C-alpha cells in the first residue's frame, strides 16, 4: 500500500456483463417463457403482483413485483428484478439483486449485487460479487469455507442497516 508508483487512476472498461455471475446464464430480468415456468424450472412473480406473506418453494424464482414477508428458496435461485421490491428477509442458494431489497439477505452459495439495486439489510454469503459501478453501504459477512453452511442472519443482526446506492 505504500508503493510510490502505484497510485494510478483506473479507467473502467470492463462491461457489466463480464462481471455477471453464473446465475446470469439462467436468469435475466426479462420474463421467462411460459414453457420454462411450466416445466418447473422457474417461476416469475410479475410486476403488478403484490404478495404479503411467506414465499417458499422448490424452484427458481424471479420477482418483478412487490413482496412483504419472507422469501425462502434454500436450494434454488432467486432473482429480484429491476422492478422488484422486496421488503423481507430472503434466503436462497444463489441470489441476484437488480431491484430493491429491504431486509437481510442470506445466499447459501452466492450473492450478486448489480449497480441498479437498492439494498437495506445485511448480507451473509460465502461468495459475494458487487457489480462494477455499484456502491454499497452496509455489512457483508463472507465465509468461503461455509458454502451451503448454516450461517443465519439471526446470529448476525446488527443495528447498522445496509444501504446500497448506485
Amino acid at each position, binding site marked *: *500500500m*505504500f*508503493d*510510490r508508483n*502505484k*497510485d494510478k*487512476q*483506473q479507467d*473502467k472498461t470492463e462491461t457489466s456483463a463480464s*462481471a455477471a455471475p453464473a446465475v446470469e446464464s439462467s436468469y435475466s430480468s426479462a420474463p421467462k417463457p411460459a414453457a420454462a415456468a411450466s416445466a418447473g424450472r422457474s417461476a416469475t412473480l410479475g410486476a403488478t403482483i403484490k404478495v404479503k406473506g411467506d414465499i417458499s418453494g422448490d424452484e427458481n424464482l424471479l420477482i418483478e413485483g412487490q413482496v412483504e414477508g419472507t422469501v425462502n428458496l434454500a436450494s434454488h435461485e432467486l432473482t429480484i428484478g429491476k422492478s422488484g421490491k422486496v421488503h423481507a428477509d430472503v434466503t436462497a442458494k444463489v441470489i441476484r439483486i437488480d431491484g430493491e431489497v429491504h431486509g437481510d439477505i442470506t445466499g447459501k452459495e452466492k450473492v450478486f449485487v448489480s449497480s441498479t439495486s437498492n439494498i437495506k439489510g445485511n448480507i451473509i454469503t460465502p*461468495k*459475494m*460479487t*458487487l*457489480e*462494477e*459501478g*455499484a*456502491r*454499497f*453501504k*452496509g*455489512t*457483508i*459477512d*463472507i*465465509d*468461503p*469455507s461455509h458454502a451451503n453452511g448454516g450461517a443465519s442472519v439471526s446470529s448476525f*443482526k*446488527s*443495528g*447498522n442497516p445496509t*444501504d*446500497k*446506492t448506485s
Partner: protein
Amino acid sequence: MVLDVGFGVHETVAHFGNRRCKLHFCGLPDALTAPPVIPAPVQKTGQFVDESVRQENLLEAWRDRFRHVLNFPEGTQFDLCLFWDSFNYMDDLALKAFFEVLYPFIRKETLGHGLIQLKEDRQVTNREYGVQSQDQLVMRPGHHAERTSHPRPQARVAAMLKGFAVSHGVLRRDGLLEVSLKTE
C-alpha cells in the same frame, strides 16, 4: 473484521471475498455532506458570549451523527480500518468526534490506512477508493456531492486520531500523504 469508511466498490469486495471476514462499509461521505449547525446565541450589547459552549454543543452534534454511522454490534473490534481520504473532509471538531466514537471498536493490534491532504488542491478531492490487491489501491472520481476539504499538517491530524498513531508515511506524487496507522 474490516471497516471501510467509504462505500463498497467491487474491487474491495472481490479482494476480501476469498477469505473469512466481515466487511463494514459505513458510507461516511453521506454523513459529511450537511454538517450539523449550532446557531450562534443572540448577542446583546455588553453581554459576554462563551463560544466554548457552542463548540462543545457542535462536538456533541458530530458525536451523535457518528454514533449513527458507526452503529456496530456490541463487541465489534476491527482488525483493519480503511479511512482513505476521509480525514480531509472533516474539520477539527468532526475529526475529533469521529475518532472518539470509533475508539471502542478498535483494539491493540488494529491497523489503519489514510491519506492526508497537506495543502489546498482540488485535484485530490472527491475520489473513490478501493483495494485492488495487497499492494495496490484503486482510485477514481467519486460520486459524492462536492465536499469542503480541510488541508492540515500531519501532526495536527495525528493529534486528533484517538487511539491511533502514525507508524509510517509516504508523500505521494499527487501531494497526498499516505499514512499507515497502528493503535497506541
